[in-house]
C-alpha cells in the first residue's frame, strides 16, 4: 500500500505530463502483481469495489475522538477522507500485524467482506496504515479517486514499460479486467497477447489534424471526400451478441447516460459517429446546439423526461467492424458503402448517415466551410478516399478544417500564477468586456484563459501583472483596468453558450489568448452586446 499511496501523493501534485509518465512507469516497473494492476484500475477508474458510506466512516472516527475536535478538524481540512486519514489515532488500538497490508490484499478483502464485516475491516485497515495509506484507502473505498491521470496517459505509461504500441494496449485493456495480469505479462514479454473474453470493447479512434497554412497546396481535391464536422461528441458504438456499449472518444463507457441510443443498437459491429441531441435527417429533424447535448452529458442516470426533452441520436461517420469482419484495413469508400448499408437498416429515429459534401476545388470547400448550411456544423472533415482506419492522429489521411474561430478583444481583469514550469509566472487570466453598468461602462468577466500566447508574450504579460496590480484576494491579483489604462488581448474561442452561472450570461468554449493587442486601449475593447450577438439563436 505504501508504494501506491506514495504514487498517489506525487501524482496529485505533479502538473507535468512527462513527470507523471515517469512516476507511473517507475511504479509499474517496480511493483509486483497484482498490486500494480489494481493501482492501474484505481487510477483509470475501472476498479469496482463495494463503496463505503461516509456516514460509516464518520461513526468509526467518532468512536475514538471527541465530536467537537473532529468538527474543528473537518472544517479546517475540508475533505472527509483526508480529515479521517489525519486524525485517526492508531496508537489507541495498535495494529496486530506489523507489516502493512498490500494494495491487492486491501482490495481483495474489501471485495470479499460481507455487509456486516465491512465496518470491522475498515477499522482494522485504518489502524494498519499510515496517514498517506489511509488517505489512499479511503479514496478507493469511497470511490472518489481523482489524481489527474487520463486513461490515455496510463496507457502510455504501460506502453513505455515494454515498448508495446499504446493503441494496441488500449484496445486490449478495455476487454480485460483488474488486476490485468495477462496484460502485464504480455507487455513485459512473458506471454502471448491475451485473448479477450468480452468482445464489446473499445477500439482506439482515428483522429484528424487541423488544416494549416499550405497543407492542402499539394493535395489533389479529387482524392478526398468531405463531410461536415458536427458539433456534438465523438463516440463509438459497439454490439456483439446481447452486449452493446457506447464509448466516448477516450474509451470511457457512457452507455448509462444514453439508454435511448443503446437500446436502438440492433446491428452487430462497431460504428464511429457523432452523438447529437435533436432529430435525425431521416425523421426530418434537426440537430440542436451543443448546450442541449450538455444536458445529457456526465450523468449517471437519465430520467424519461430528460430523454424526451433532449432525445439523443447518432450521426454515423465510419464503420470499424461489420459483424465480426474487421473493416479497418479497407479503404474509406468501401467502409462508407458498408456503413450506408448498416445505417439504412437501423432505427431511423436514432441513426442517420453523415452526408458527404460535394466540392471540386479547395477554394470551393473553403467557401462551404465558412458558411455551412446548419448552425450545428463547426467545419468540414477531409478524408482520403483510399485511407484505412488507423488509430491515432496521423498527418495526411484525415484533416479537420474548422470555421474560423470567433475572436473578440477583451481587457485583462485578474491574474493568477500558473503551475509547474509556470509557477513563477502569472499565466492564468480572467478577461472581460465592456457593458453598461449603474455608473457608466464597466468590465464584466466573460472567460478565463491560460494559453495561446508564446513564452515571449508570457513574459510581457507577467511583467504587466507585476507592475499593475491594484489589489489581491489570496492568490488572485486584481489588475489595473480602466478605459485608459490596462491590457487588451485578442481572445479566440470555438463557440459561445448561454450561461446562468456567469454574470455576463455567456460562457465561451475553448478560449485562448491569440494575440496581445498592445496597440489598443482598453476603451477600444469589445462590448458584451457584440459577444451576445454571436450566441446561437434561441429555439
Amino acid at each position, binding site marked *: 500500500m505504501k508504494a501506491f499511496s*506514495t504514487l498517489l501523493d506525487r501524482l496529485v501534485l505533479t502538473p507535468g505530463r512527462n*513527470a507523471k509518465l515517469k512516476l507511473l512507469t517507475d511504479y509499474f516497473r517496480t511493483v509486483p502483481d497484482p498490486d500494480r494492476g489494481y493501482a492501474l484500475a484505481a487510477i483509470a477508474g475501472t476498479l469496482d469495489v463495494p463503496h463505503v458510506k461516509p456516514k460509516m466512516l464518520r461513526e468509526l472516527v467518532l468512536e475514538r475522538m471527541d465530536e467537537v475536535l473532529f468538527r*474543528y478538524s473537518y472544517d479546517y481540512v475540508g475533505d472527509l477522507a483526508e480529515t479521517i486519514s*489525519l*486524525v485517526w489515532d492508531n496508537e489507541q488500538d495498535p495494529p496486530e500485524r506489523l507489516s502493512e497490508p498490500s494494495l491487492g490484499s486491501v482490495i481483495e478483502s474489501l471485495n470479499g467482506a460481507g455487509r456486516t464485516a465491512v465496518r470491522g475491516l475498515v477499522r482494522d485497515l485504518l489502524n494498519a496504515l499510515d496517514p498517506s495509506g489511509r488517505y489512499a484507502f479511503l479514496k478507493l473505498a469511497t470511490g472518489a479517486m481523482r489524481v489527474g491521470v487520463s486513461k490515455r496517459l496510463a496507457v502510455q505509461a504501460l506502453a513505455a514499460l515494454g515498448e508495446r504500441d499504446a493503441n494496441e494496449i488500449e484496445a486490449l485493456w478495455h476487454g480485460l479486467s483488474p488486476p490485468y495480469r495477462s496484460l502485464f505479462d504480455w507487455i513485459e514479454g512473458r506471454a502471448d497477447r491475451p485473448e479477450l473474453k468480452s468482445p464489446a470493447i473499445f477500439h482506439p479512434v482515428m483522429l484528424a489534424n487541423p488544416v494549416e497554412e499550405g497543407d492542402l497546396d499539394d493535395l489533389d481535391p479529387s482524392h478526398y471526400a468531405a463531410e461536415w464536422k458536427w458539433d456534438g461528441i465523438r463516440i463509438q458504438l459497439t454490439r456483439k451478441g446481447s452486449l452493446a456499449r457506447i464509448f466516448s472518444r477516450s474509451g470511457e463507457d457512457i452507455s448509462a447516460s444514453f439508454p435511448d441510443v443503446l437500446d436502438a443498437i440492433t446491428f452487430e459491429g462497431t460504428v464511429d459517429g457523432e452523438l447529437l441531441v435533436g432529430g435525425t435527417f431521416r425523421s426530418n429533424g434537426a440537430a440542436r446546439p451543443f448546450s442541449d447535448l450538455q444536458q445529457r452529458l456526465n450523468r449517471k442516470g437519465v430520467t424519461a423526461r430528460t430523454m424526451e426533452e433532449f432525445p439523443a441520436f447518432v450521426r454515423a461517420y465510419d464503420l470499424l467492424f461489420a459483424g465480426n469482419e474487421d473493416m479497418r484495413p479497407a479503404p474509406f469508400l468501401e467502409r462508407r458503402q458498408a456503413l450506408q448499408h448498416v445505417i439504412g437498416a437501423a432505427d431511423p429515429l436514432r441513426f442517420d448517415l453523415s452526408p458527404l459534401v460535394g466540392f471540386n476545388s479547395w477554394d470551393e470547400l473553403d467557401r462551404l466551410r465558412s458558411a455551412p448550411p446548419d448552425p450545428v456544423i463547426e467545419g468540414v472533415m477531409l478524408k482520403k478516399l483510399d485511407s484505412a482506419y488507423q488509430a491515432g492522429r496521423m498527418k495526411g489521411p484525415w484533416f479537420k478544417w474548422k470555421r474560423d474561430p470567433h475572436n473578440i478583444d477583451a481587457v485583462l481583469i485578474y491574474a493568477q500564477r500558473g503551475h509547474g514550469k509556470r*509557477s*513563477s509566472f502569472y499565466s492564468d487570466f480572467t478577461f472581460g468586456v465592456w457593458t453598461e453598468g449603474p455608473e457608466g461602462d464597466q468590465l464584466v468577466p466573460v472567460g478565463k484563459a491560460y494559453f495561446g500566447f508564446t513564452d515571449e508574450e508570457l513574459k510581457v504579460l507577467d511583467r504587466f501583472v507585476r507592475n499593475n496590480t491594484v489589489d489581491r484576494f489570496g492568490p488572485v491579483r486584481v489588475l489595473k483596468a480602466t478605459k485608459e489604462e490596462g491590457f487588451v488581448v485578442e481572445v479566440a474561442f470555438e463557440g459561445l453558450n448561454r450561461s446562468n452561472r456567469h454574470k455576463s450570461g455567456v460562457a465561451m468554449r475553448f478560449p485562448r489568448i491569440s494575440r496581445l493587442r498592445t496597440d489598443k486601449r482598453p476603451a477600444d475593447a469589445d462590448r458584451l452586446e457584440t459577444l451576445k450577438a454571436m450566441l446561437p439563436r434561441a429555439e
Partner: protein
Amino acid sequence: MSSKMNTDNLLFPTPEGLYCPIGDFHIDPVRPVQRALITHGHSDHARAGHGAVLASRETLEIMRIRMGEGFCRTEQVAMPGETIDIAGVRVSFHPAGHVLGSCQIRVEHAGTRIVASGDYKRSLDPTCAAFEPVACDVFITEATFGLPVFRHPDPLGEIRKLLASLAQFPDRTHFVGAYALGKAQRVIALLRQAGYDKPVYMHGALVRLCEFYQAEGIDLGELRVAVEEEKADFRGAVVVGPPSAFSGVWMRRFADPLPAFASGWMMVRQRARQRGVELPLVISDHCDWPELTATIRDIMPGEVWVTHGREEALVRWCELQGIAARPLHLVGYEDEGDA
C-alpha cells in the same frame, strides 16, 4: 495554586504584546517598547526599535544579523536557567527547541509562576537545544498546529522522500522552500544526516544565517550560493531558499524546477496544492497535536493560556482533560510563514 486575579495582574495581553506591569516589560512585543524580553529571532517575535532587549546570546546575534547593529539601545544576555531580577519580578530563560537560541520565558512574582513558551517543539532537532519542561502555575502555549489533524511524521523520513525524488528525477532542480531562520538549516542538517554529501545551493537570503549556524558548531556541510549571474548547471541539485522565492523571478533561472516545501502545513494536501508545491515535506519547527497535548500533560500547570493558532481546539482538549484553559488573544503573530 495561584488565584486567577494574581496571574492576570502579573502578565496580560496589550496591543504591544504580552505585558508585565510590575516589572514594566513586554514579551515579544510587536511594537517598539522600553523593555522587551525576546523568546527567539523570528521576525514576528523579534522586532527592531526597542529600548532594552533581554534575550539569549544566540537570539541577540540573530537579531543583529537580521536588523543590523543598533537594533535596540541596550542589550543583555540571558543565560539558560539563570534568574534575573527585574523590579522584583524573577525572570529566567529555558530552551524551547524551536530554532537556535529559542527560549521559553519564566516569570515569577509573589509565588506565582507563568511560563511564556514562545514557539516550541518537542521532536529531535540537532540544530538547537531541546525543550525543557518548566513547572508553573500558568503555561502559555502556542497553537500553530493545534488541531488533531497535525501529526508530523519523522522528519528524516520526509528528507528521504526528497532523496528518492532526486534519484527519480535527476535532471530537475529540486527547490526546497524553507524559512530562512531555523527551517533552512534544519533541512540541510537533515540532508547531511541522511547521507547526502553533495554541495547544497542556497538563496542569498540564507547566507548569513547559515554562516552563523556553522560558526555555532552546527555542521551543514558544503554550501554554495546560487548566484544570479552565474549560469551554473543546477540540474539535479538541491537549492534551498525562502518560500517567497517560489513566486519570484529568481526561480526562473533553474531548469525545470521541482518545487518542494518544508513546512508543517504540508500535512494538508490542499495547502500544498494552493502553493503549487509538487513535493511537500512535512518538517515543522512547531509542536504537532500529540506534542502539544503531551507537553501540557508533562507540565500539568494550574491553567493553560492558548495563543496564536487554532486556540479553540486546544482549549476544548484541556476542558475534556479537566484542565483550566482559555484563549489569549495576541495580535501580530504570523501563523504561517515560519511554520
